[in-house]
């Protein structure tokens, strides 16, 4: 167990170093940072001074080492564009992105699980077929198209919901939330649905597949043979057994939800980290790009690590039991 965790931790560390190297090389290959920081009319002497002060004349390995050490302390330097600490900028933007991701995940679960259960239980009903068809659309339509369609219908056409922004935001000091105002919720509806749609269809299909599998197990047959009501069989015995994989997958998906937020945030002008990243690309604001890249990679790595460890803890008994229960 300990050996397993240590090994996974080391692997995670390697992944993070590779990402850091990628982020670092952006500084070297995309433009000269000094050019970004000073005016056109700055003298060569001032530039050289700046270069020296920023440590750009040191050997590459030393620079990379310094970059990693700084990044580990959440110091990603100063944004060229905003002239502020990148870590502060990200911290300002993080609540918007995290709230959006959280709402999307909740939406995906609350809608996806019941739809999955329904389609699993009533395999041949017409409603199941409608759900499955709609889910295919959800999977195959690109996010931005769905977002734009929704804006067109609910903002432009019906005028029910705002088409951009985060609504009124309440600042709690450490966190700025849109969840305490009506306009905040209104503004969150379409972005959350857009962002969560893909995960919702994924969860629905997963729950459906798991339900179909669990319904074939001996313990479900035996539960029926004992005369338990359908409710107890379907929800007490079947659904409960599907939840382990569903929760794992949803947890894993949280990483991609945060990453995919870029597109949704752009479509809805949602003031999160993703939007800032895209703007940073346009202005070649490399410190922000690098920090964002590292942050997203870090979120992925941490989530994967947690899930792997959970699997290791939960798996041996559960997985084996399930596998044998399925085969008759």
């Amino acid at each position: 167990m300990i050996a397993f965790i240590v090994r996974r931790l080391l692997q995670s560390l390697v992944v993070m170093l590779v990402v850091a190297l990628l982020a670092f090389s952006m500084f070297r290959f995309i433009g000269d940072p000094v050019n970004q920081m000073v005016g056109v009319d700055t003298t060569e002497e001032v530039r050289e001074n700046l270069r020296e002060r920023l440590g750009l004349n040191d050997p590459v390995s030393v620079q990379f080492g310094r970059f990693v050490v700084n990044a580990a302390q959440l110091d990603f330097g100063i944004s060229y564009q905003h002239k502020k600490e990148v870590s502060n900028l990200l911290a300002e933007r993080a609540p918007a992105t995290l709230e959006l991701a959280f709402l999307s995940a909740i939406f995906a679960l609350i809608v996806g699980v019941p739809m999955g259960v329904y389609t699993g239980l009533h395999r041949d009903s017409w409603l199941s077929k409608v759900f499955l068809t709609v889910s295919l659309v959800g999977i195959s339509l690109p996010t931005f198209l769905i977002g734009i369609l929704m804006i067109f219908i609910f903002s432009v056409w019906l005028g029910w919901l705002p088409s951009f922004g985060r609504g009124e935001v309440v600042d709690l000091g450490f966190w700025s939330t849109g969840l305490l105002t009506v306009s905040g919720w209104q503004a969150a509806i379409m972005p959350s649905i857009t962002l969560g749609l893909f995960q919702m269809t994924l969860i629905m299909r997963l729950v459906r597949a798991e339900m179909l599998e669990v319904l074939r197990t001996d313990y479900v047959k035996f539960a029926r043979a004992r005369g338990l009501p359908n409710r107890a069989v379907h929800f007490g015995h079947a659904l409960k057994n599907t939840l382990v994989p569903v929760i794992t997958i949803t947890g894993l998906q949280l990483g991609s939800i945060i990453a995919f937020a870029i597109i949704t945030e752009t479509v809805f002008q949602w003031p999160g980290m993703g939007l800032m990243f895209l703007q940073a690309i346009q202005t070649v604001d490399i410190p922000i790009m690098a920090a964002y890249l590292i942050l997203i990679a870090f979120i992925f790595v941490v989530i994967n690590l947690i899930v792997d460890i959970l699997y290791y803890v939960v798996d041996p008994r559960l997985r084996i039991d399930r596998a044998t229960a399925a085969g008759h």
Partner: protein
Amino acid sequence: MNETTTFADSAGATARPRGNRPVLEVEKLRVEFPTRKGTLRAVDDISFHIDEGEVLGVVGESGAGKSMTGTAIIGLLEPPGRIAGGEVRLEGERIDNLPYEKMRRYRGARIGMVFQDPLTSLNPLYTVGFHLTETIRTHSDLSEKQARQRALDLLSEVGIPAPERRIDQYPHQFSGGMRQRVVVALALCANPRLIIADEPTTALDVSIQAQIIRLLQRLCREHGASVMLITHDMGVIAETADRVAVMYAGRIAEVGPVQEVVKNAQHPYTEGLMGAIPTIGGTHEDLVQIKGSMPRLTQIPSGCAFHPRCPKAFDRCRRERPELMPAGRSEAACWLHDPAEKGRRRGNG
């Protein structure tokens, strides 16, 4: 004590000597599976009955339709499988065409079922006590506390040591044999009149198979339940069953008192199964094995389905399908026992 009398009463009252009133009557039962290649008939017009307190053994090769028959009786065929004809009567009441909800209430309370694999019959996420109380409360109005007491009683009845400690444990904390005891307790906890036991010991260690079978037999006797015991094990049948039905390709080949069928088989297939074919100088292998294998459902032979493998087959076997007919003290579906045929043979011979 008072609380459990609802169950104890009925158990006591039914533990009377065997009567001749059939608990289960199956008449021309037919189970079909519509498939793309046509309709498969897994159970084909079979009729039998089980008397009160009786143990009916059901034997036959894999795929003979034993489990299908049991599943059809308890009403748990998985779609698209369906009962395509015939009748099933429980204590005189027809149960094959009941609405789902009504049949659901009968399951566990009037017909119980035990499956082959105790390892997978219990939900790994729930304690043994949860399984028991949920079943007890489904079929009675006992309170949670009374149900728990009843569960404890049942656990000691099926021979689980230290039930107070064991009741809150999860299935994986029990050995296979102990789990199967729990499964038996679950099947019996609402005192059903009939238990269908589908190879209840196949998945268990040989050393504990006999214990479980004896437990099942004792409990069913005490609770006054009849048993349909599906198994591959002729030893178990010989020891436990009162009568035996031998199934072949979805039909009953022979049915009769256990001693008769084992010692004095009337159907050539049973003879082969019992290893009683008298071939002079034959090796042991020849005695036990029947040449060939059971036909697949898609290619059931005409006439007597056994004729391609039958050492005694004759013309008529290929053309006409034999129904069960009296044969010795049993009944067999074999033309050899047709009086007309006997007369002709004697005449010829």
